[in-house]
């Protein structure tokens, strides 16, 4: 037999004694990576939009927006208000969780007025006649340093009268 090269241990490097676990570790890592990618494919890490509707006697609010996001993502939220009864002065109030760590790039159509309502963001949309729909498009981007879970609350008022409240859980992955 040829001289064994220095530092080569035949039992370990040729017979692979006690090295079967290396293979299993590699397989486990491969499995973990596959599971991660399957979860990504199944939209676990975002950003497919979901639709949630809240129905009240006077109006229906439908929010179409991703509930799973990642830091830095650009996305769109669409708020549709269907006026079952006439809404003389529709006001949408978004809780701070809508905007904290998230940049609003644009809101279309531009609301009649914007204000802070007890710490929340208030959009005055104006008059919505009975049987008509109002769509509000908000283009947003998650700030790169933002991550974690939050509950976004949306309230719809007619002037000072609360018509409905809607809550959505949003998760932002780093």
């Amino acid at each position, binding site marked *: 037999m040829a*001289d064994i090269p220095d530092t*080569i241990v035949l039992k370990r490097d040729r017979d692979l004694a006690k090295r079967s676990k290396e293979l299993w570790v*590699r397989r486990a890592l491969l499995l973990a*990576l596959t599971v991660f990618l399957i979860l990504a494919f199944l939209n676990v890490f975002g950003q497919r939009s979901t639709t949630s509707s809240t129905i009240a006697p006077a109006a229906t609010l439908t929010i179409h927006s991703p509930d799973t996001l990642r830091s830095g993502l650009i996305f769109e939220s669409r708020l549709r208000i269907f006026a079952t009864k006439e809404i003389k002065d529709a006001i949408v109030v978004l809780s701070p969780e809508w905007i904290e760590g998230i940049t609003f790039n644009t809101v279309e159509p531009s609301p009649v007025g914007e204000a802070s309502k007890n710490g929340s963001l208030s959009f005055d949309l104006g008059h919505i006649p009975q049987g008509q729909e109002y769509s509000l498009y908000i283009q947003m981007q998650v700030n790169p*340093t933002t991550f974690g879970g939050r509950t976004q609350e949306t309230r719809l008022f007619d002037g000072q009268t609360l018509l409905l409240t809607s809550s959505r859980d949003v998760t932002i992955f780093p």
Partner: protein
Amino acid sequence: MDIAIRAVVLYVFVFLLMRLAGRRELSSLQPFDLVLLIVIGDALQQGLTQSDYSVTGAMIAVGTFALLQVGTSYLNFKFKWVRPVLEGYPIVVVQDGKVIEANLKRERITVDELAEAARLQQLASIDDIAWAVVETSGQISFIPKKSS
């Protein structure tokens, strides 16, 4: 701080990915591998610094990688028990001109590929090889038989 944490997470991820890829992939650098490396680098960069274009941000990212690399090599040097985790051990695939099939299979190397690698080292036949070892870097080192 944020960039440093991201750099640590990505370093660990890339490290595990390289260990997972196996030595075979590490040793070869075909044109496609080169393109893939650039694409991986670009994808990592976006997750690392995102929209931070500052020199400070770049210095934090590169500094963290450098520190982790030095730390890893220090651990590897200082503690023997860490070596199998960080680097692994070499694997003998040929002894005295005989191919050890099980070890080749483990490293996903065919006999043809082994023969090709041997020819690159001016070894015409596997019979001429005393030892062939897949090193931790993924390269195969050949020790020819001593001529009588």
